[in-house]
């Protein structure tokens, strides 16, 4: 039996108490659904000696507000609830799709949005049992001193593997954090750092309490597309989230972010500028998608080859854009090109 290390299990009754316990126990970690943390701890990827459960807190389980005033989601709302939540209709659909595409129904019943935003960046050399890592040679991220993917690199390139993170960026979401020093609210993008080890700006004593989706003015559509080997189970090896606000048939603003191509979710909004003010035709979407894959630089440290993940980035951007524009997602030029190339 693969077991957890010896640890204390604390169950605070308020967020304030949780943050104080975290400040008092260096190396303590919060646990919500445990679906990322427990496997990682069983593989000894962290040295935590204390878990602080967020599951006895009285709050954090509600979805409030509406499209016109903005929606506030408690950090402990489960992925299953969000995948089918009526509040996450058309404008916020990308988030529902992202949550609904996480792993299996079982993991979605247990896993929460807060935990999903903070998934520990993954790597083929890291998400392995202790004995596997010991046999191959430990790496920078845990127990070792070199990166096994990029041996001369001074940093870790573990992959941001959260499905909801790119959706949160595309939807311009904000998160509220509460810590011993007070409460702060920041753009979802500011939660992340481009580093496979030190991947979040959240301080260890801070609890994510809520995620906010801003009020929608006029019409907005969004979509999330995810690449993985087994659709029923796997982490993303590429995720594309797109959100578009409309002025009639023309794009007012288009935002997008990529998941699983770097150590943080990558905002590619600036590449969508040619869409603004335009009616998105098939050709325009393909052109924009073709250029917008530039920041995608996957390394050879997840499933499938990094060549293929790079090759598919523009294709998935095209699919997500077409989806958000109400066009048949698989009917675009870039999809036709890969089909012809593969056939």
């Amino acid at each position, binding site marked *: 039996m693969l077991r957890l290390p010896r640890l204390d299990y604390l169950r605070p009754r308020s967020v304030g108490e949780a943050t104080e316990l975290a400040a008092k126990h260096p190396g303590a970690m919060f646990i919500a659904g445990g679906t990322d943390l427990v496997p990682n701890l069983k593989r000894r990827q962290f040295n935590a*000696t204390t878990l602080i459960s967020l599951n006895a807190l009285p709050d954090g389980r509600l979805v409030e507000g509406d499209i016109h005033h903005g929606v506030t989601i408690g950090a402990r709302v489960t992925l299953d609830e969000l995948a089918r939540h009526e509040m996450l209709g058309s404008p916020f659909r990308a988030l529902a799709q992202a949550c609904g595409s996480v792993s299996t129904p079982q993991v979605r019943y247990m896993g929460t949005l807060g935990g999903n935003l903070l998934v520990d960046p993954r790597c083929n050399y890291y998400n392995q049992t202790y004995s596997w890592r010991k046999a191959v040679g430990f790496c920078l991220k845990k127990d070792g001193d070199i990166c096994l993917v990029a041996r001369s690199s001074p940093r870790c390139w573990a992959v941001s593997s959260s499905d909801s993170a790119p959706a949160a960026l595309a939807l311009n979401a904000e998160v509220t954090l509460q810590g011993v020093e007070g409460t702060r609210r920041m753009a979802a993008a500011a939660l992340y750092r481009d580093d496979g080890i030190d991947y979040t700006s959240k301080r260890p004593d801070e609890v994510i309490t809520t995620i906010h989706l801003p009020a929608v003015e006029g019409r907005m559509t969004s979509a999330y597309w995810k690449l993985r080997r087994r659709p029923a189970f796997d982490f993303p090896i590429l995720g594309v989230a797109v959100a578009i606000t409309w002025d009639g048939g023309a794009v007012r603003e288009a935002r997008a972010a990529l998941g699983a191509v770097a150590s943080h979710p990558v905002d590619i909004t600036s590449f969508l500028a040619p869409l603004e003010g335009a009616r998105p035709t098939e050709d325009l979407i393909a052109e924009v998608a073709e250029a917008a894959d530039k920041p995608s630089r996957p390394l050879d440290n997840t499933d499938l080859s990094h060549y293929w993940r790079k090759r598919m980035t523009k294709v998935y951007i095209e699919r997500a854009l077409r989806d958000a524009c109400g066009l048949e997602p698989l009917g675009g030029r870039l999809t036709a090109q890969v089909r012809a190339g593969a056939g």
Partner: protein
Amino acid sequence: MPIADRVAVRLRVNGEEVAVMVPPYKTLLEVLREDLGLTGTKHGCELGECSTCGVLVDGRPYLSCLAMPLDLEGREITTVEGMADGSEPDPLQVAFAELGAAQCGYCTPAMLLTARALLDHDPHPTRDAIKEALSGVLCRCTGYLKIFEAVELAASRGRRHG
């Protein structure tokens, strides 16, 4: 402060209140199998990747290998041992046996419970809904078809027969 060797955990398993003294870092899977003797719940990957350790918590499929017992106090836990009604098996168990929906049987407890959760929420599911609901439970033997057929047979017979 030293780490507690054992803590008291009160669980409600298959309708019965049970109290155990266990290390706080034991997962529900370990407590069920090792402390409560309920070995019907199987262990596979122990990492959330196969669902063979599936149980129901308040009627929803949960992975016992990732669930922490202290957080489940007050919740209703159902294992495969709790499916039969006295000596009368659940219609799903009957249908699985009749149609040969189990080969090695290792995934069967989780398949049965996951299917039970589905039928309790959706008594007449489509084939697609069955596939989606069971998609997390890995079976390396049957090829799934007989399992889908057994769930459909049980659904057609209703909650309990006889």
